[in-house]
């Protein structure tokens, strides 16, 4: 199973036909609470997200910056679990049969859930892909290979430190798309340079036919547009999570306009991405 017939492949094929890059949005499941989070999730596609990354909250998100760390802790405090995250995807799938959902997180909750059971439940819920930050190719037998066999795409992170020698190992067992981490660092902390992204995407394309999504450090519609011009998709996470955090009351509860504020931002990002390849976007 190479994932070529899944929702992710179909979506990237459609984007290619439209001649534009896609917008991938990240939110954490259960942030700030299950109900609000589900409301945002169900509005993302309508606001213009082409693919959805849904964070599986973890107590110790080592590769994340302060914004997504806080999101993870809010979600856990509100009672989110991996089981509830899968249930959330299942509900979403009843309304939306087409938008790909990728679960993103750390290995331990999956390991404790039990990898085979998790894959079966994820597939049944309508999950299309997985990004597991702390599972390098050295441990492919644990989740990557079983996932690909179960028909769930296993998406790999490539980084500026993944040199040409290591790239084949990283791209060996993977499908869906390649997630290029555009900065050295944790999520949401450094700005991305378009020149670097262009070079990196060109380098990756020499090694793989899979679509390349670029993330970490993309905040504005302008930046998203610039990235979407040279890559197959731009990923925005921390910026959305920060908007969400800005719409909490003093007790950390969602204010009434929270979901709308996040979705409005998604719409603005989508507009930037959609205009990117049509006419040149003025440099910032």
């Amino acid at each position, binding site marked *: 199973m190479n994932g070529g017939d899944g929702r992710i492949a179909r979506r990237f094929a459609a984007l290619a036909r439209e001649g534009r890059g896609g917008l991938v949005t990240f939110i954490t499941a259960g942030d700030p609470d299950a109900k609000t989070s589900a409301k945002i999730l169900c509005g993302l596609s309508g606001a213009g997200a082409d693919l959805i990354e849904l964070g599986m909250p973890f107590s*110790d998100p080592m590769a994340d910056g302060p914004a997504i760390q806080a999101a993870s802790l809010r979600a856990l405090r509100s009672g989110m679990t991996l089981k509830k995250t899968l249930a959330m995807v299942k509900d979403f799938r009843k309304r939306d049969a087409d938008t790909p959902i990728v679960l993103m997180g750390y290995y331990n909750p999956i*390991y404790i859930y039990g990898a085979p059971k998790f894959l079966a439940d994820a597939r049944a819920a309508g999950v299309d892909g997985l990004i597991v930050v702390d599972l390098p190719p050295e441990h492919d037998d644990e989740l990557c290979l079983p996932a690909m066999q179960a028909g769930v795409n296993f998406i790999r992170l490539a980084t500026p430190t993944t040199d040409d020698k290591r790239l084949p190992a990283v791209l060996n067992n993977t499908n869906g798309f390649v997630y290029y981490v555009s900065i050295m660092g944790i999520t949401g902390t450094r700005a991305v340079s378009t020149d670097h992204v262009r070079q990196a995407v060109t380098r990756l394309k020499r090694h793989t036919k899979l679509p390349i999504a670029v993330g970490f450090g993309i905040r504005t519609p302008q930046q998203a547009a610039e990235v979407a011009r040279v890559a197959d998709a731009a990923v925005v996470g921390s910026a959305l999570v920060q908007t969400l955090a800005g719409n909490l009351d003093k007790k950390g509860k969602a204010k009434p306009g929270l979901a709308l504020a996040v979705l409005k931002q998604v719409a603005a990002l989508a507009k930037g991405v959609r205009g990117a390849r049509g006419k040149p976007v003025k440099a910032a």
Partner: protein
Amino acid sequence: MTLNTFRAGPDERGQFGIHGGRYVAETLMPLILAVERAYNEAKNDPAFHAEIKYHHKHYIGRPSPLYLAQRMTEHLGGAKIYFKREELNHTGAHKINNTIGQILLARRMGKTRIIAETGAGQHGVATATVCALFDLPCVVYMGETDIARQQPNVFRMKLLGAEVRPVASGSGTLKDAMNEALRDWVANVENTYYLIGTAAGPHPYPTMVRDFQSIIGEEVRAQIMAAEGRLPDTLVACIGGGSNAIGLFHPFLDDRNVTLVGVEAAGHGLKTKKHAASIEGGRPGVLHGNRTYLLQDEDGQIQEAHSISAGLDYPGVGPEHSWLHDVGRVEYVAATDKESLQAFQLCSKLEGIIPALEPAHALVEVIRRAPRLKKDHLLVVNLCGRGDKDIFTVADALGVKL
């Protein structure tokens, strides 16, 4: 168990049985592999060993004595008790054995900036010390809770020229400091070396730290042969991440007649949620680059550990210990805060040695075990740190105002 040897691990994937491994973000993988290559080269280079040996003798003050604790032996009325005096090392704990080894490796690798995590501050001090010695900038991540209870060590690190960065996330203890150090490393991979303080983390760290700490057990072996003409019967050491214990145990793993006992921190008790006994109170999971026994809930979320000893306050344990538990070569027990406070005071009064709260946990097991053993039973306990850093914590626990 039909293993020929317990000392062959880890395998080529860095695993001890199911434990260990390299569960890190891709950004770090090339670097972890580079550390492994550099360490393998160094290991085979006599010049590297000569450098370590020189610093052992002239800087740390090794060998540390193996001391017959006569009054404690008489008081308990059973086994003959020896203290391995790691608290007499420069900086007052075993931690410097590892930091000397790793800083020499970092220099070989051409790294120009050192980062570390610390719990009690002992590893932070040991790292700041060697960074001063070799003139390298040093950033130490330390949880806010730990900073509050280990002020003397925070000040020491600053005197040594290190920058101590407080970590507010999570419970503000060792695990959070480790998360933050990993985040720093991901952002500064090119020039930075992460000097991990315990025998945990991604491969090759657990092995490397074990090798650097094995000087403890190697010395004990020679010293007890000189003193008694035979190997010891029982070795006891406390376990947080487990670096002092693995350093003591590893040279004896294949001496089947030597009983090995690791003592975890039971905090308020194993039946409460406030303890740090990952082996007895946890189950295997993946955190900080390795699979090992972890304190966690049914959803795989890591739980906060608790121990009066900041150095044991960690929800995981080194992967080799997890494996030694699985195969039954080492016995793992636990000691509570309260028991450790009693042992702390007993040792101070009987031997004129104020132990750190960490080895006070090991002493609890000595106090339990020694009276039941014969007088010719040789029991060695690793006194892995001195207690000066803990006097405020102990005073507070005993209701004394300083």
